[in-house]
């Protein structure tokens, strides 16, 4: 048998094999079952009509559609992040406890390949789950928007709105339907969940239990959601208009490196729910930031994991 002289430092093929196995593992663990209640929630929202009034007899269907989007995006964010933390926390400690890791690392598999493979596997499953939830959201939102358009047009005609105002009203309602901008919101949640999975990966490389990994990752998630507010409160008083000092800026940067600033991701999602204009360059920047966070956490994970003894 011909034998390779050396094993490459990093092999995308091996990473893909481990990622593929991780996807199979998570799929066969039946984790997609959580999509059933999500589907029920999204479908059930169709029948949860709420009439909004703004002044006498003025219907506001846009707000109803916005609420629909907020609930859908919120659910996607919650499940995506929960899924990222729990599944990543289960994988590596599980492999160590079961000693499956011994047999993998005794093959010519660099530890970096293993870590990146596991992370990519989790990200692939998050992507699939997000895609399914996204399709559900778009379909339900489409039907709801169509229904609202008919309902509002009829209402406006009945009370004698001029044709031009009816068209303007219809355009306002349609802008709250499924649009490309809404997809940016979904994408921001996917990126947030991916960053959180990378955080959980880092913690699982030195943690001794699944519970510790889940609890710590969840804590970092919460800190990440509120750290920008905390930073503003600590280092900058908007009422006084004072600028942060150099030391405060360094501390602030360090905090935002250790704890990812999830508020940045949420702000894109909130803007998408309000159907505000989001530029592709903003999305590219958010993608770059997520890649930076993931890169930092993977390198740190590798640093810890490369000398870990089993």
């Amino acid at each position: 048998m011909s034998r390779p002289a050396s094993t490459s430092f990093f092999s995308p093929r091996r990473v893909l094999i481990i990622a593929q196995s991780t996807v199979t593992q998570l799929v066969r663990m039946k984790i997609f079952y959580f999509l059933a209640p999500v589907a029920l929630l999204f479908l059930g929202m169709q029948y949860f009509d709420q009439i909004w009034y703004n002044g006498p007899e003025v219907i506001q269907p846009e707000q109803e559609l916005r609420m629909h989007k907020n609930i859908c995006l919120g659910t996607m964010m919650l499940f995506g992040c929960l899924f990222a933390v729990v599944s990543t926390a289960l994988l590596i400690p599980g492999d160590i406890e079961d000693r499956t890791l011994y047999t993998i690392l005794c093959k010519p598999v660099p530890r970096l390949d293993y870590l990146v493979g596991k992370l990519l596997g989790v990200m692939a499953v998050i992507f699939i789950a997000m895609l399914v939830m996204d399709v559900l959201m778009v379909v339900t939102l489409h039907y709801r928007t169509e229904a609202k358009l008919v309902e509002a047009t009829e209402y406006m005609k009945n009370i004698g709105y001029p044709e031009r105002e009816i068209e303007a009203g219809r355009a306002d309602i349609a802008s709250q339907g499924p649009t490309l901008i809404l997809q940016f919101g979904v994408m921001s949640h996917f990126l947030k969940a991916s960053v959180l999975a990378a955080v959980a990966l880092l913690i699982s490389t030195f943690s001794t239990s699944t519970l510790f990994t889940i609890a710590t990752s969840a804590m970092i998630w919460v800190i990440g959601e509120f750290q920008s507010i905390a930073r503003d409160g600590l280092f900058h008083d908007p009422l006084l208009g004072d600028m942060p000092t150099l030391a405060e800026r360094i501390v602030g940067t360090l905090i935002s490196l250790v704890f990812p600033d999830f508020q940045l991701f949420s702000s894109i999602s909130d803007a998408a729910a309000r159907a505000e204009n989001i530029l592709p360059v903003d999305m590219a920047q958010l993608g770059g930031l997520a890649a930076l966070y993931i890169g930092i956490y993977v390198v740190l994970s590798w640093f810890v994991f490369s000398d870990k003894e089993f």
Partner: protein
Amino acid sequence: MSDAAAVEVKNLVKDFKGAFNGGKVHAVKGVSLRIAPGEVYGLIGPNGSGKSTTMKAVLGLVAPTSGSCSIFGRNSRKVDSRMEVGFLPENPYFYKHLTAAETVRFYGKLCGMGGRKLKERIEELLELVGLQDARNRRLKGFSKGMLQRIGLAQAMVQDPRLLVLDEPTAGVDPMGSREIRDLILELKNRGITVFLCSHLLEQVQQICDRVGIIHQGVLVNEGRLDDLISLENRTELILENASADLLEQIQSLVEVTHESKVVSSGNARTTLEDLFLRETKSKKERKRVSK
């Protein structure tokens, strides 16, 4: 490279931190051993003697505190060395969601195998370990013995020159244990080096060329099995169909010499394992005939 030992451990020392920084635990204290290519080497010792730590150091799963380990001349800490080695851990667990064939395929792919070659290798190995009928069953329903066999199959997937087996027959019934033993002997005939740890001393005696005894982290004895277990001042004579007269004559002859004496005599005995296998096999055969 061809002259390199299959396994070479030089002055291996491994210390672990004690609980709450309460000093060091000296797991292995200066162990040195060399396993030649094609040899079957057994490392035996009581629990906590440093067997598994030595094995893990050879596999690169733990870093030596001092000393070194190499596989076919390559440092064990380097990933390259693992192309030549297959490992079966004690009580192995694999991904329960995979089937037997998928498990072997997964490990084969990790070793860079693929396509038709891997497909054929999977079939060959499943047949070798007797799991071809369970090839599409998920591992979560496997017995301990079956897991041990699939463990052997994954260890051998890339056709390694060295197999490291940690308690290869733990939890396996006598028949399966015999099959694994025969398999190790077959691998030995193919020129594969085997490094194994076992508590089953009789089995080690049956299959190993050389044995090392480790106790409290120190290799207290090592050598060719025949040399280690033979009692120089004793001779064994096994007769078949010997009459009482003949035995009496032999006894008298021995007594005449005054220098020798008969230490014991009686019927030669089979092993319990052989008896068990004979009985269970014959019962199975009887059942098959009656069907």
